[in-house]
């Protein structure tokens, strides 16, 4: 690949899933995967992963810490379908059944540099109350057929969700050849660090 005339650009995502804040639950683990468009392909690194089970600290913060590293490089020809990180958190319920505690997604930041994202998490709601009760009883709560659903817009209107908890992820982004392919992702450098941080 000629350096002067690249045909793809690269996006390197480093960072880690720092932890989560689920005030009600404990002993959770997190699954992550990347969702990207047709014109994207991961070149190195893991596309999917699953963290260890983390318990809350007894200290005041009550945060779950995973510190699970992410390290993936994508190549792409088209910024459309920019990769998204989809995280889903699971953990045991009262009866010890593994149930989902939250789904969430965020786009990988565009601009190079360090970013910290806090992803609000949500779970689908049971269709009706009895369902909710039996779901609680049997430990079979409603789940998305595919966690990747949360990264797409189509068909979401049929679901109802309720929110619970947050997952914070820190990204270290590097891009290559984007500028050469005439894609501007805004000013880079330390100045944009603060602005890129989302709440």
């Amino acid at each position, binding site marked *: 690949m000629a350096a002067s005339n690249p*045909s793809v650009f690269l996006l390197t995502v480093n960072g880690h899933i720092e932890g989560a804040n689920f005030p009600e639950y404990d002993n959770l683990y997190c699954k992550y995967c990347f969702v990207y468009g047709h014109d994207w392909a991961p070149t190195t690194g893991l596309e999917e992963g699953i963290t260890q089970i983390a318990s809350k600290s007894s200290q005041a913060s009550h945060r779950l810490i995973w510190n699970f590293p992410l390290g993936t490089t994508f190549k792409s*020809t088209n910024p459309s379908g920019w990769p998204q990180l989809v995280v889903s958190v699971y953990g045991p319920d009262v009866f010890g059944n593994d149930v989902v505690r939250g789904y969430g997604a965020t786009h990988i930041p565009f601009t190079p540099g360090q970013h910290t994202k806090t992803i609000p998490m949500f779970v689908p709601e049971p269709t009706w109350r*009895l*369902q909710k009760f039996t*779901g609680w009883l049997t430990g079979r709560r*409603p789940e*998305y*057929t595919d966690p990747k*659903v949360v990264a797409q817009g189509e068909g979401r209107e*049929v679901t109802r969700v309720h929110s619970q908890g947050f997952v914070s992820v820190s990204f270290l982004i590097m891009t290559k050849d984007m500028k050469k392919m005439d894609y501007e992702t805004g000013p880079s450098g330390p100045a944009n660090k603060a602005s890129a941080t989302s709440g």
Partner: protein
Amino acid sequence: MEAPEDGEEDEREALKRHLRAERQKRKKRLLEQSSIQKSRDADDVKDVTSIQQYSADEGPSEKADDSVVLSKSRTGSQKGLTSRTQHTHHLDDFVKRRLEEKLKAARSKGESLQDKEASLEFPSRLHSLRDRDTVTRFDREADADRAGRRDSPPPLSTRVRFREAARQVGKGLPTAEEAFNFFTLNFDPDPPDVIETSSRRRQKQRKTTDEDEEHEDVDEDIQEENETQSEEAPLVQTQEDLFVIDQSPQDFLEIRKAEYVGYQKLLQLQSELLFTPSFRTVPTSIKLPENMKPRYLEDEGLYVGERPPVSLTNENILENRILKMEEGKKWFGDDGRIIALPNPIKESSTRPPLFHMEEALDPALQTVYRKAVKSKYANLYIAGAADPEGDYQLDVDVSGLIFSHHPLFSREHILGARLAQLYDQYLTRQRNNLTGHLTDKLNGLRNALRNMLESHSGLNPTQALQQRISEYNLEVRNTRHLRDSEQEKDRTLLKNIVKVWKEIKALREFQKFTNTPYKLYLRRENVDRVSDEQDYEDEILAEVVELEAETEEEYQNKLAEYKKRLEEWKLCRKKQKAKKKKQKKKKKGQAQDDTEGEDEEQDVSESEGPTDEPPPKPEPPERPDLGSIEQWVREKALRIRRKPGEAILIPELSASANITASELCPRAEKARREDVARRSLFTKILYNDKEVSRTDSRSLNTDFRVHFGQIFNLKIVNCPQSISLQVFEEIGSSCSLLAQVFLPVPEPSVVTGSVPLEEFEFSSNQRVMFDHEGVGSDVPLSFEADGSNKQSLLTSGKVSCCVSWGIGDDDVPLAPPISQQPGGVHSGKGHLDAVSYIGASGLYDMKKIGEWAKQSRLDPNDPKNASIMQLLKVASSGEVTAPEYFRLEHLQEEFNFVTDEELEKSGRFRLLKLRNQEVAEFRNYKFIPALEREVTDTVFQEYEKRLKEGEVIDTKEHLDSHRALVAKYLQKIRESVINRFLLAKHHYLLSDLVTEEEIPTIGGAGPGILGINLFKLAEPKRPLKPQRKERKKVTAQNLSDGDIKLLVNIIRAYDIPVRRLQSNKPGQTSHSALQGSIGLPDQIQVRPFVEVSFQRTVLQTATADGPNPCWNEELQLPFSAPNGDYSTASLQSVKDEVFINIFDEVVHETVMNDKNRGKSIQTHIEKRWLGSVKIPFSTIYSQSKIEGTFKVNTPAVLLGYSKEKSHFTNSGFDILRSLSEGTFITLFITVDPQLVPGESVREKFDTQEDERLLQASERFERDAAQRYPDRPCITTVIDLSGKTVFITRYIRPLSPPKELLDEFPNNPLEATPLVARFVSLIPSLPDQVSLSATCDLWSTCDQFLTLLAGDEEEHAVLLCNYFLSLGKKAWLIIGTAIPEGPTAYVLTLEQNLYLIWNPSSGQFYGQYDTFCPLQAVGCLVNADNVWFNIQQYTSPMRVSFDITKANLWKPFFSRTFSHPGLSSIQPEELVYRRTDRAAAAELQDRIERILKEKIMEWRPRQPTRWNRYCTTTLKQFLPKLELIRGQDVAEGHRHELQSLLGDYRISGFPLNLVFSEIRPIIEAVYSTGIHSVQASNVEFALAVYVHPYPNNVMSVWIYLASLVLT
């Protein structure tokens, strides 16, 4: 009374009162208990008597007292009526004691009583008193007693007096006065009674004291009395019996426990007293006299009025109540109901209408019209204002206030204000520079005119040019006039400013102090005198020239006018003269001599004069004096213009003058200034006439300016109607309203920060006068020395403020949407704006703008109009067409980063576009290159080829071209359907996205409520009879290759053909076969195994033994979707079929003799095809599982095999005999994981059916689905054009091809199977496969025959129509069958037997056939009606097909909804094309060639030898087979073959296939596995025969055989 005793008495009285109160309290308690038992009567008597006594002795005591007591007691009685009874008893005692006292006194003074009595005048009155109302008097007394004790001393004092008297009596020291008082009383009527009662009382009292010592603390008086009365005690005692006999102690006092009555008892007691009427209807018999039947007048034809409405319950209660009464029955009428008058309420108003006769109408009845009052601001809430987001904020900025006149203005202030005003005016004018602007314009016009004249100087000016010149002249004149007036104004203004300033100066000098800081400087700007003069002169010259020209023109015009007039005048005169002459002549002729000519002439002229007077001779216009013009112009110039060379004066107003300090001012001025200082001002802000806020109060400055500088943020809910400011002036604590200023409601676009402060003027007409220097308001004042030119000034001023909409945090204006602003909102600056003139929408309409520009005569030189002029220029350069689009659209192109053509050309964008459109080839295209050059053309090749194919039809070969045509047609339909469903495909259901466990069911299958399933936990893990469980469904979208497996569970098979012993002798074979099947059980008959092939994956079961093997084996076949696309649509269009082939495993053992190694046995395992079942994947997919026993498609002839004779005996119809012959296999097929079949499209189709019919059909289907959810019910279907059509329209008798009928001219019954065969030979193509969407399209028969493809419904309809034309009774069965699922069969009635036809196979079954694939009957359809099966069972065996029975079959069209006469959509007649036999032969050769090549291809390792002899032999068999439609002819075959090929071991079979494409034929051949014979010496034979039927329907026969030389 005695004064000295007063103090002592008071003490005593207090003590007594206390004691009495205590005693009474106690007594009350006691008596309350016993009072019930006491006889009231006795009491009454006693009371009365006692009272009589009391009143008797009270009365005379003092008249005045008495009256007081009476009046008192009266009031008291009114108060204390309720508590009276309790007091009666202790009152008794009280009275009694007193009586005793009195008695003693009476006795002591007994003698002196009589003589005194006579002289008294009172008794009569006392008597009357006593007689009048003793009881009430007693009552009153009781209350008077209490009342007295409470608050009134008078009755007390009287009592005291009695006591005193009594005591004195006791002491034996009565005064004469007392005696008199006492004995004026009249005891006389019944003294003994009194004694008796009193003694009785005493007795009573004693007893009570004895008993419970309650009376220990009785008054000392009583003790005393008792002692004193001791002498009488014996008397009483003797009478004891007499008195006490009926009065037990209980009568007076009794102590008991509180009595408790039990609740039940209470109820019982109550029930004795109470009656609760029941709600129940009273039976009529009770209500009527015995033995009377109710008589209903209504029934007898009598009129019975309408009873008033009473609720049934109430009526029942009433009846029950009445019945309880005696004589209750008389309330009931003959009909057993309560007698009731008819409802008195009239239907219509009976009140006479009021006529409008004013005099007749009572004024009280007059209707008064009041205008509806709109509640102000109610319901004017801005929508959405209530919710927290929709808050609207109005910012009112009150900056300050400047008075242009104020009562406290001094004269100087007035002048100052005037000066400031003038200066302001001057500044404004200066800014606008109208004069300069007009001068420029004038010059421009003059130049233009000059140019025009110069350019056309030589030429003869044309009409148009002249016109233009005159227009220009006019314009020049107008402009000049304007300029002149402006210049004059400027000049005057300047003069005025100077004048006012001079006045101020004069005033300041005059009054010797300065009040205002104004100072005017006049800046002089020197000009170049020469050039200025030159300009001046030029200007005058030009003007003079113009004026001259004008006057000249005017003169010319006038002259022309004059000439015209003159001409007219002359003409007139001529006429007159001519007339005169004529008349003269006439006259002369008439009377020549007798009259004088002159007289006549005069007469005539006189007579004519009034009528025909000539117009006055017009005056010739004066020649204008050109010299005076110049004079005039110069004068004017002098007046309005600066003199040439004179310096330009520029006034500058500053506020730098020093105001004289107050100390230095005269007294009056000081007073004024003090007054000013006292004043302060504030403003109230009124929103919708309500005060919402007010500014701080600021004191008035000496310069009469007030600065508030406050911004009020009004959060509003109501629509803004008015915003106003009220200016208040405060003097000390009182404040007065000065003026009100109304502010306009801002437009929503006016937001804070973007609007400048505006000044709003206000004024007040209040008259204010002062005695100091302040000029006051509305007071005439003059600045002239002589007091002339008086003017009165009103308080006025300007408020500078602005109103705007607030801006939210996110820069959103907090203004309500414009639509919600009620009318009457006026923008403050509309008049100059084009927007207000033509409306906002008009701005995009060039024409309107042009019109507006023309009308308003926009000045092109005005810089303000520059943009509009430019726009107009642009617009007028081209055609002024009103674009119908938004003007910004022009700009849209600028947003396009490349042109559309470029976008089209770019391969990359094309790729992206196609992928986005989900074109099949590009749907999952990955990595569209980033750069244009990397997109290769090859990418599009396939796609373009496909597009091209759509247009070009391959016409090489007749048959295939026809097929191609059909395929294209199908493709088109498919595309249209896909487009139609594209939207629906993107509709998601919750289950597509969220997986949710269904609530466990109560037993049974299917979703249900939590219940017994919990018990399943306790179920055995491996039950003895396992049942299939519902599995979880998986949506197809997130699957990938290898995820899906096809599960085929092969359970068992029946009646597999058995091997026939090979023998060289034809005669023996049959014999031995017979033996083999029956006689030789130990011999291996057949070793069948099942091989399942799907998508080129082949799996097989273990080998079993015997003709009825049981495998019970599960095979898993992987499934991969085309293009890796696992979407529902893609899965539905999978055309692959599952082939289930039954093979016989034959083991050949060959003994090899090898010299070196000795004997060895080589074993060949050969498999021979016995039959197959093929199930399309689409069926499995849509059914999700297929379970049942299927008939195996066995070849008509199986060489080397024979059928075991069936053990079934068939009865009846001889056609049925062969029915249950055949091989059957029990299968269970499913897909793992269970895929969700495509939802049927949720869309309503357009239709031409009657709405009523559609509704009825919807209802019918819904009812059916509700009552019998598992029975298919179809009333409407969708035709190929996507329209809803009622199903009966498809049924119409249509004649089958003539060729088919010709074969059996005599026997139409024989033709039936042939017709069925013809129909079955039309290829089957499920709609889902062809249309890739779950939607059942029904094509009509002609479409079906043209397409030569369709699913079961089309086959069934065609077959049914054929049968109808053959004169059979036929119906369409909508039901479910295996393996098709919901399908359509045909039912015929032949010789009282119902036959069920499978239209796709041409097979028919009797109603009671066990192996009939039809499983459930949902409804029957014919041309007239649809019947839905409402019987208990659905299985055809248990269903009665008698549709006339309404309890078994629910008809769609019934008596209530009759058949509306629906016309059929089928053609009247089907046109058949004869198939070209040559083409068929050609096809036959082609197929044969291809198959041979394929077989050789499949055997790459071994040579494939073809036995030509065998082939030709086989070829001869095939037409025969077609003729007899594959019925068993095996025997004949074998004989022939055996005879011919005695040395060979033959195994072979004919295949009969429907021709649609070549591919399925190859597949079928491949699946038989005939090519896999491994024997080295094997030879093959292959014969193909294509039998053409009309309309290109082909029956393809393929005879395959393998021969092994033995």
